[in-house]
């Protein structure tokens, strides 16, 4: 088996997606990333709320601070109660649509290692025709780990134990697409790790801060602290965003297209992004022939919401990997978008080393 440090791009993503780390429990991802980044000319800091921040000094020619962020957490579950028959009541950590829960395998980070279970609804045969057409209400779903009683379940876990979807990272569609849990936002983390490693000793004029943040899925509190510590001038949020480029979905409702390169946001539910930076990024993509696309719908939200209002305001952009079925056991993204994102970011970083360019982007 390869060491974590030897994993790049899709292999790195695969390794990171296999880690179970819902919001508030990101430590295993943080440890993995720390291993991956070992030996680079960076200073790593872990702050009080679990963010991992890599600082890479610039040449000194500019005091501009560029902040790149990707969140380490994923959506998941928390045990909120144990029924007398040993089945678990649970809440979602982060926004999970009720319709993608029933029939999924899950695993909990239990007292004695991982405890497997399944999300159960009363059998479809014994439901009325009306009930069969509806997703089972969350309050009627239970997680079955095989336990027979409260005490039996408590042998493995307790109220407050957290878990995630249990799914296998899979490449499919002639190898073009990737499917798995936690692609949101381990894909941003993987790109960021690759970026730092590809930069090697290359000199950049500005101060670069790469933040691997916590708790994005429950309201972006990690990014708030990380940005407050760094006080950046410019921020780029590396994300995955929900798209619906499905047969039958027309125009802008698709949000973005898999394989069309990173989606650059003009606005979403948390942020109105810098027009200058938006134009700058799409301009660099065009100039260098790298696929990129404007995100065509003001939907979703991400760490930018907390970052861009920090300090006296931060010029902020978001670049997202278009992802189908986000926040489910089967998030689907395109392999080529990973490489487009990484290449575009390299060009952005190099482009920003040009002082004129930098001041242009900052406006």
């Amino acid at each position: 088996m390869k060491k974590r440090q030897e994993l790049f791009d899709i292999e790195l993503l695969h390794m990171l997606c296999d880690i179970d780390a819902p919001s508030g429990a990101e430590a295993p991802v943080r440890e993995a990333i720390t291993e991956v980044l070992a030996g680079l000319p960076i200073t790593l800091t872990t702050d009080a709320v679990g963010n991992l921040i890599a600082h890479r000094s610039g040449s000194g020619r500019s005091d501009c601070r560029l902040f790149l962020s990707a969140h380490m957490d994923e959506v998941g579950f928390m045990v909120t109660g144990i029924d007398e028959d040993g089945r678990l009541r649970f809440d979602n950590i982060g926004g999970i649509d009720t319709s993608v829960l029933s029939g999924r395998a899950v695993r909990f980070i239990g007292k004695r290692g991982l405890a497997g279970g399944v999300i159960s609804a009363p059998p479809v045969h014994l439901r009325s025709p009306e009930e069969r057409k509806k997703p089972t209400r969350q309050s009627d779903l239970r997680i079955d780990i095989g336990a027979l009683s409260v005490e039996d379940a408590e042998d493995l876990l307790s109220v407050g134990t957290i878990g995630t979807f249990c799914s296998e990272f899979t490449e499919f569609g002639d190898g073009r697409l990737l499917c798995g849990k936690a692609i949101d936002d381990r894909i941003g983390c993987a790109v960021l790790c690759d970026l730092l490693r590809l930069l090697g000793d290359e000199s950049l004029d500005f101060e670069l801060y790469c933040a691997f943040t916590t708790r994005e899925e429950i309201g972006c509190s990690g990014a708030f602290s990380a940005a407050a510590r760094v006080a950046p001038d410019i921020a780029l949020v590396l994300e995955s965003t929900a798209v619906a480029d499905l047969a039958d979905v027309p125009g802008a409702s698709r949000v973005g297209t898999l394989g069309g390169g990173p989606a650059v946001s003009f606005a979403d539910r948390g942020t109105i992004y810098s027009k200058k930076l938006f134009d700058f990024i799409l301009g660099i993509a065009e100039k260098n022939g790298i696929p990129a696309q404007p995100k065509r719908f003001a939907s979703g939200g991400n760490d930018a919401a907390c970052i861009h209002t920090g300090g006296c305001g931060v010029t902020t952009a978001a670049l997202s990997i278009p992802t189908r079925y986000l926040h489910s056991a089967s998030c689907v993204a395109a392999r080529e978008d990973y490489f487009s994102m990484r290449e575009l970011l390299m060009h952005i970083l190099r482009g920003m080393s040009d002082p004129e360019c930098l001041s242009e982007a900052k406006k």
Partner: protein
Amino acid sequence: MLDLKKQILSLCDYMSVSGREISGDNDVFLYGRFDRTECDHMGNRFFYRFCGCEHAPLLLVDAHFDEVGLLVSEILEDGFLRVLPVGSPDMRALPAAPLTVWGREPLFAVAASTPPHLRGKNAGDLLPEFGELLIDTGLSTDRARALIRVGDRVSFRKRSGEMKNNKFYACGLDNKATAAIALFAAASVPKDALPFDVCVLLSAGEEIGGRGACAGAAGLSPVAAIVLDSGFAAAPDISSTRCIRMGEGPGISYSAALDRYLTRRIIDIAEKNRLPLQVIAENPVTGTNADSIQFNRGVPAALLSLPLSNMHTPVEVVSLEDAYAMTSLLTALLQDPAILGGETK
């Protein structure tokens, strides 16, 4: 010692969405322990043990081998498919489920889920209808058309996992679990202990109306039939009296459609051997192959059920202890000459 769980899971790996039960070779795990094996045009598989006496009566042990799934009804642009149900897969378990499209080669796919921004105000309360549900193969339009044809079957992705108390989940345990039990029990009876010939029928097409068992039983002319199927595991939120409790052994059904003598005899043998058995009433019919075999073909039949939860989802759950209990009971029944007595004899 054969590992029953391993055998169950190895049967689960067979793609057997109704109508396409024979997906590979016929070399299932205990093949070598039977005196004869056959297939027919319905997709049924027959496994015989002979007692060695000429003109010996035949006992049929039926367990259906097909599973619910989907079939491709339309191949759209960009590798998306439309599908129709085969049997009654649980629609609620489909959005974002990993699937396998059984085209020219097995292809990984995902059942699409609709993102919240595309839902109307109340549309989020409803699951997609079959005409609306999309399957995402990730293939280009051309590749999808080259690899997939209308009518190809789609199943839930074959996966399994461990749970507490010897329970486990897998896709297709309804009814691969009892199919494995039937083969396991029939293979383990010593030849000289067989009072009659036995045919294990792994029947096709149960999920679409019991047609395999009907034709299979007709061709065999057995004296009696024991049908093994999956039964609903009890849970506090299910009020049905048809449920059986997981971990407390198999269930046996009294039903107006089934043979009371055979049912009674099975209960007696379970008691005599101190094997757990849960008695339930399913009236007037059971909705299983037992109905088709007794009702349509006039063969006295009884029904044994293995408790199973999350039926027709990719995470069907059974208890290995129940599976062993059912195996022990069936092994005892296959050595009981009186089982062939019959109501009218």
